């Protein structure tokens, strides 16, 4: 009897262990399955995802991937056209363009993700508080956002960059201001819609404080909007960064940025060495295209209501 009970307890324990283990194994399988379904339904989105992953790898392992340093001059290889030795050719300072593009991904990706993180966090704080509290606070915040939004973005960014001076961090700061202002509008709208639901009223009736309502009830429900906003915004930020670098307000040389590779010497020598101006543009277009396509596909899958928005 006693042995039986122990065996029973043991098997119960086993099955509990089994239960504890199973979700983990099936979670891995579920993720794989979800990814496979996503690839089947959105093939272009999946390919874009692969391009994005390739860019992330390039960013992390630039030293290993690039055959030369970004600022390394190669003897006797001035303005060589693309070929076996230098896949994308060399520039007027005898530097390997492929290597510079690999290092340039670091600038685009870092600025892209940092701006989205900072800008969206600010947008969420502004948008949720403005939509949740409403009233005079909302009115004042929205008039300020209005004023910001009636400026051409490039003018704001250029002025802010002129104030802060060039540099990676300053590019992130100036671009974040734009992301925060425009994003806060969308998040405010979503917050107002969520705040009207009965469960928010119920939470308030139960005596929840503002902080709890915002963090536990509102924020999780506007999270989809925030995620979609960030993926879709990434492409635009990479594009804006390249325009800024093109105008000479970006990351200072000799560190390569795709935008700055296109300006300056890229333009001076563009008739003699057109590849100097062609490849950085291809890199920008491909990166932005991949982020846009991925963002689009994610939006369709995560929130079909926002299709075409």
């Amino acid at each position: 009897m006693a042995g039986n009970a122990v065996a029973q307890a043991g098997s119960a324990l086993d099955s509990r262990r089994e239960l504890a283990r199973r979700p983990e194994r099936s979670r891995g399988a579920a993720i794989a399955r979800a990814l496979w379904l996503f690839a089947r339904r959105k093939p272009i989105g999946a390919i874009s995802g692969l391009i994005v992953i390739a860019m992330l790898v390039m960013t992390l392992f630039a030293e290993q991937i690039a055959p030369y340093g970004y600022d390394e001059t190669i003897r006797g290889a001035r303005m060589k056209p693309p070929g076996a030795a230098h896949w994308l050719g060399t520039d007027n300072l005898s530097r390997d363009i492929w290597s510079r593009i690999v290092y340039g991904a670091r600038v685009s990706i870092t600025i892209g993700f940092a701006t989205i993180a900072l800008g969206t966090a600010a947008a969420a704080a502004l948008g949720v508080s403005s939509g949740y509290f409403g009233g005079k606070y909302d009115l004042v915040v929205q008039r300020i956002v209005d004023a910001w939004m009636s400026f051409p973005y490039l003018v704001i960014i250029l002025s802010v960059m002129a104030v802060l001076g060039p540099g990676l961090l300053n590019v992130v700061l100036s671009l974040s201001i734009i992301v925060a202002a425009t994003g806060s509008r969308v998040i405010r709208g979503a917050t107002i819609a969520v705040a009207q639901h009965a469960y928010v009223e119920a939470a308030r009736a139960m005596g929840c404080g503002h902080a709890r309502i915002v963090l536990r009830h509102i924020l999780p429900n506007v999270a989809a909007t925030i995620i979609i906003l960030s993926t879709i915004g990434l492409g635009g930020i990479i594009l804006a960064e390249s325009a800024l670098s093109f105008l000479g307000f970006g990351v200072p040389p000799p560190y390569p940025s795709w935008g700055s590779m296109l300006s300056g010497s890229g333009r001076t020598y563009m008739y003699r060495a057109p590849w100097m101006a062609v490849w950085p543009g291809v890199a920008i277009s491909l990166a932005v295209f991949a982020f846009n396509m991925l963002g689009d596909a994610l939006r369709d899958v995560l929130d079909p209501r926002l299709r075409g928005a």
Partner: protein
Amino acid sequence: MLRRYLAKRLVVAIPSLLIASLIVFTLPRLIPGDVVAMMLEEKAYAKDLEELRAKLGLDRPIYVQYFEWLGRAVAGDLGESLWTRRPVLEEIGQRLPITLELALLSLVVGILIAVPIGVIAAARQDTVQDYTFRSAAILGLSVPGFWLATLVIVLPAIWWGWRPLTGYVEIGKDVVGHITQMLLPAVILGIAFAAAMMRLTRGMLLEVLRQDYVRTAWSKGLRERVIILKHGLRNAIIPVITYIGTQLPQVIGGTVVIETIFGLPGMSRFLFDAINQRDYPVIQGVNLVVVSFIVAINLVVDALYAVLDPRIRY
């Protein structure tokens, strides 16, 4: 009713404009680099920094300068450039038409590309045509305009020895030359704009085509053309017009880079140089004019709703 609504909107626009004027005035003054020192070095206007500062009126407290500037601006006087001593309004008057022409042309190009393609993509949803147009639109959003502009200048020159005109051709002197010169930059600016607009047109039209009255129209046996253009597009176009209104600042801002590449003497180029030279009155003047312009256009867009959609009454 419409008039009352517009009057109300105008009153609401005033605080936004005031905040904008404050930003316009403060931001350029935060730029490091003393304009007075720069000027004294290059142009010997005065004996020393203090005298020059006093001459330019930059020695007074900043709020005094702000209110004086604002007071004059309301009366239509934007002061004069610190460097050239020419009235800012006059300089803007010469350059604004070029930028506006470029912006409007690119808008027209954008609409001409976007609306027909958006309609076709929606009418043929999920076909090869639809996918092609949508992918092309995202590609259009992804290609940097300044790169496209560079390629358009470089590649034909290398392949065929053809170069676009450099140096601005005035419309009064050579109409054909002027239009051909403006068309290329306008198309390049229009492409990015068209891409976003096409996606919106498609999305909105799809939404409308699912409505009951469209089904009714189908069952009445109306032709597809009539259903899509008359019943569909007319109802789908309002968000598109809103979008055009909100994108206008960006179209005007986007001209900075294009004007630089094509060597057009427009406002954006003027502003860009002024930022580099710390020419406060010019930076303030240009920004204020642009912002006022955009606020006015948004007002017009709002009024347009009522014209396009009889259901909207203010």
